Structure formats: C-alpha cells, structure tokens
C-alpha cells in the first residue's frame, strides 16, 4: 500500500508507482485474456473496480517482478518498464504487444536521499493522483477491446529498459557485472544515438496511447505497441482459430 503521504519522498513515489504497476499488470492479464477470466476476482483500487488474479503463483510472480523493478527504480536507472505479451510457442514466441510505461521523467536523486522530502509538493496531490490512476485504469480496460484479438495461450513477461549510459551523478546505468551474457540489440530496434536514427521497428506497427499521468513528481506515460509479429500471427491464426495450443 502506498504510504500515508504519497509523493513526498522519492521512496513513497516509487512505492505508489509500483502499486499502480501491480494493478496494471493484473488488469492487462485480465483484459488480454492471458488467464481465464474466471480466475480473476473483483476488487477495488483507487475507488475503481479492478480485476485481480486469484491464482497464488500468478500473484507471487507479479509481486516478485514488481519488486525487482522497484529495486531498479530506486537506483534511478530505469528508462521504461514494459509488460510484453508473447505469442505461444507454436506461433513462434514472438512479442505481440507491449504495454510501455515510460518513467524516464522520474526525478533522479542521489543514492542516500531516497527518504528526503521533495522541496515542493503542490496542492492536493493524493486526490489528483488517485483520479489519474482511475482514468488510466478505465482507459486501459477500454483499449483492450480496441486492440486486435490475441491468439490463445499467450505468455507474458515484465521487462525494464535502462537508461543509456550517461555519467549520472557518478553512477553507471549499464549493468556491468550482470551474470547473464549481454546480447546486442538488433539494428531495427536500436534507439537513436547521435547521428543514427531510431530503429525501424521501434514503436511497433501501431501505437495506442493510454494516458500520461502527472501528479506532483510522479510523471509518466503509458502506451501500447503492437508489433509486426502480431500482424503476421493474426493472418496466420484466423483460419486455424479452432485450434487450441
């Protein structure tokens, strides 16, 4: 739960955001029918009816993923958080949809200052924030129906995109020393750097904006990208829609 004084310190800002992220992931799972709809129960968050998964392993997984994101957020190195929906194994395991949370505009603060209050908290931030979260949830649930249909048995994951390696108050963003091997980004997905332009496939085939939330220091945007693979999957899946993987 968010602390009693949301958005007064960086730590409370992050915790508010991670609560929101948890709810958003549950909502995405429900809307995109990753798990059967009966496995969700109705709950209320931010004074709005939302769906929450009942399966303990799902909840556990989501909580673990979100706490990992939170750990990274506290180091101010996160650029974007993405919830990616993959096609099932049979259809090639390609990413079909991407629910992107752009948190690059979160304040960057030195390591020891996470519990220092911000200098200026304007107005009634808590109410405003709740209302914006509510609006985001409502928009998210509507967007779900405007997106093209997903094939059955999709899978999903949560990914973080780190900020590019800028000398950031003396901190390196790149996870040097991370145990898993590094893989270079394919050229069509590379971001612009200097003279080079954005990769052709960045942003997907279709981008659907959801909402930009701005409440005090909590500023982030959310949108949905649909990938090329989804187009291909859609055309392939239609004749064989009766098959269950």
């Amino acid at each position: 739960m968010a602390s009693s004084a949301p958005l007064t310190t960086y730590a409370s800002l992050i915790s508010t955001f991670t609560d929101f992220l948890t709810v958003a992931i549950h909502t995405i799972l429900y809307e995109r029918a990753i798990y059967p709809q009966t496995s969700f129960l109705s709950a209320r968050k931010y004074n709005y009816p939302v769906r929450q998964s009942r399966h303990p392993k799902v909840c556990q997984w989501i909580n673990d993923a979100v706490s990992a994101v939170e750990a990274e957020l506290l180091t101010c190195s996160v650029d974007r958080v993405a919830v990616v929906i993959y096609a099932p194994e049979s259809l090639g395991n390609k990413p079909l949809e991407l629910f992107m949370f752009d948190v690059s505009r979160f304040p960057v603060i030195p390591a020891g200052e996470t519990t220092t209050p911000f200098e200026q908290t304007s107005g009634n931030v808590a109410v405003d924030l709740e209302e914006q979260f509510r609006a985001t949830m409502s928009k998210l649930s509507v967007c779900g129906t405007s997106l093209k249909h997903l094939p059955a048995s999709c899978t999903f994951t949560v990914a973080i995109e780190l900020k590019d390696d800028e000398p950031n108050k003396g901190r390196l963003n790149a996870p040097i020393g991370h145990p898993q091997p590094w893989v270079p980004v394919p050229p069509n997905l590379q971001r612009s750097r200097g003279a080079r332009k954005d990769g052709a496939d960045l942003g997907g085939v279709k981008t659907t904006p959801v909402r930009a939330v701005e409440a005090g220091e909590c500023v982030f945007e959310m949108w949905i990208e649909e990938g090329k693979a989804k187009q291909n999957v859609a055309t392939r899946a239609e004749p064989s829609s009766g098959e269950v993987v």
Partner: protein
Amino acid sequence: MADKYNEYLAVNVLNEDRVVGFPSHSPLAEFRCANDRGVVQVSYRSLSRALKVHSNLAKHMLYDFHHKQTAKKPGSVHATYLIAGTCRPETSIQANEVNGHDAEDSVMQSSPPFRSSSMPQQEESVEEDVAVKLLLLAKEEDLEEAKARFDEITSVHIYSLEPTSLKDLQVLSDCNREIRSKYSSEDPLEAWKQYGTIQNPNVKACNLLILFTIYTDSIIEKIKSQATASSRTTTLAKDEKTSNTKPGDDTKPSRRASGSHTPQAEEAATPSSKKTTVKAPTLKRDKSDIFKSFAKSKAKLITEDSAGSAGASSAPESGEPSAAEDEPMKDVSEDEQEDDFVLVNSKDTEVANRRSKAEKAEREERLRKMMEEEDEPMNDAPSVAGMDDSQEQLLTQKTESQQSAEQEPEATTTVSGGRRRGRRRVMKKKTVKDEEGYLVTKEEPVWESFSEEEPVAKKVKMPTAAATTAKGKKGGGGGKPGQGNIMSFFSKK
C-alpha cells in the same frame, strides 16, 4: 437544450482518439480537453445529472445519440442495455448457473436465490410457478439473447454508452461513484423531482429526531448544571462526548429504551466503538450522573433490580461512585421527586429554584413519555448544539408533530392533616424480553398513589435511610414525619 446532449455525448463518448493529458510537445495535445478525467462511459444517470434533466429523458437522449451515430458510422458507439421483466424459475436457474462464468450479463434477482439450488431436482414437480423478476444488464451484441430469457419484458432501455464494447461491465459502477462525488451537495429531497429518482412519499427529513435528541440532552445538561457544582462540568463534557461518538449508530437489535437517550447512546457506544477497559470506569461515572438525573432517588440506583436489564447493568457499579458523590447529587434526585407535584408547603427560597426545575422536569417527563411511545430507534446523536432557543423550538415542534400524544394527566396532590396524598407518576423499570431474545429495559412512568407519611409506599425500591437524609437536606420542603427527621416538625405547621 436539445442539442446539448449531442455535444456532451460526442465529447465524452464518441471521441475515441481523444487521449487526455499528453504533454504539450506531443502531437496528441490538441485532444486534451477541459475535463481531464477522460470519461469513457456515460450512463443515463450521469447524463441526467450533468444536463439536469429527468432520467427518462436522459434515456431517450442516449437512445437517440446511439441511433444517429450507428447510422452514420456503425460500431462507433456501443450501448449497454438494461432489461427488466419477469421470467420463469427454470430460466432463472440457468441464468444463475451461467452467471458465474458469463461475464456478459449481470443478473440481479429479487427472488431468493436459494430457490435455484433446490430447483434442479424438482423441476418437473413444481406446481407453483413463481414468476421471478429479473433485471439484466446486457451488451448490445447480446441483447437478443438476453431478451429471450424473459417471459415478459416490462422495460428495455439503454443503460450506458461507451466507445467500444466493455469487457467488464463492472466498470459501469464508476459512473455512480462520479455522481456521488460530483453531485453530493444536492439535496435529494428536492432534486428527486428533477431527476426522477424513486421517492417514498412517507419519508421525511430526520431533523425532528435529531432535534429531539438535542433537546433531551439539553434537559439533562440543564438539570445537572443547576444541581451540581462546577466540578461536575468535566463529567458533562464526557457525556457529550460519549453521546457524540455514537453518530448514526442504529443499534438495531439491542434497542434499549431505558428511559433516557444518553445512556442508550453510551451503551451503544460501549459495545460498538469503545471496547477498551479504559472506557469502563468513565462510563460508570457518566452513567451514574445520568441515572441520577432521571431516577427518583439516588438510592434507586443502588438497589435497582438488575436482573438481566442491560441498562441497569452498570447500576451496581454506579452505586459506588454514587455513594461517593452522595451529597451533591442528592439535590438532583430530590428535585426529581419533588417536581411531580405542586409544591404547597414550602416557604423557602429554594422553592423558586425548584419551580423552574419543576417546569423543566415536567417537560422532560412528557418527553420521556413520548419517547416511550415512539417505537423507532433514535438514529443520529449529533453534537449538542446551542440549547436554549432550540428547547422552545423543539417543544413546539414536538407537540405539533405528535399525533397520538397522550395527554399527561396532571399530578394531583392534596394536603390533609399534614399529609400529602395524591397520585403521581413514578418511574418504574420493566425488563422485557424482545422477540429476538434481547432484554429490553424500559423505564416507564406509572401512576402511583402515595402518602407522605409512608415513604416506603411511595417508592418501592427506595431504602428509607437515603430518602430521609435526602429529604432532610431539603429542609422545609417535603420533610417526612416519623423518620427521625427533626425537620418534620416544621413541615406540619
């Protein structure tokens, strides 16, 4: 007015590409609208509140808009329908079974749901075919299927409009939250005509009861403040607090009409809000104060028959503090005794005081009587406001509104041969077992003939010792003979 709704709906529902809140450098900024909330669905209720029209008119507006838009561009607006009607029980069973898995329709039934569980076995052998009233919320694509469920449809209308089909109908509940937050300032008793909300003609604002509570509280305060020393004010403050902390505590099963409202409030407060043991000692003291102001004598508190009576459960406890507060409180109880009959014999200056107290206590008696008759539990015990003007005001209101007010027969006294005889009202406690098994203590005024020389006959539960000392303190007024009371000498003369 006619076109307003078109505009409202177009802005709120139709504009699919409208995204709210994107920063100014984004190309989508042009779609930012004044209503930063980003309404996605509009129900007929929120439309009626927004445009200040009757709900039925709002339903027409929704239908009209939907009709026009789908004619122009099919699929641009999606409607959710509300169908009301009756259906056969067998159909309702299917509805119940389907309901758990079917996210399409929400079934709200007015008949008891237990029926459905027993029905499957007895389907063929059901003789009585009880029609079930059904209210179904259906998406427009499921409309025909939903209609087929009904035997007889009493009404179909559009419940809400949204840009695309809703996966989860429960998001429509957000419209009601919006109504509650935006339009809560409107007085429902006036607004209902405009919006067409269903109204019970017998309902009236609760104000009288609230004022009544204030009045009784104020009576208690007045009596106490006059009879007691200033040190008493701390307990008074506590009384107020305890009665205040029971806002709207409708203690439904344990309705204790134990003759006063404030102990009722406190009793309710104890189980419901303050369960700590810390509260118990303070409550004891408060109770004893209240009881003293009502009970005929302080001694009554001690010897009260507390057989299962909830109100008197603290009587034994209050006995101790009451013993401690013997001297000052005697005045109060003394007042109660004297006030019922016309004072004939006193020449003291105290009489003047007592007369004013008598008026107040008479009013209080009448109030108590009326309270006894009124069967409804007192709902809100709000903060005690300024009392003086409200007292008169309340009294007139109360007498006006009371239709079946029993006229309180006058207490009569006669003085003959140095004795006072007559009939007067006495508070007696009766403990009654409710139909729910709860013990209800009622303190009822009953008529009783009394004779001064036998104080024991006057009050059944009053031990003589305390009474005589109480009487003795008063001096020339109401002194009883034959009690070893020196003052009795003077009263007879």
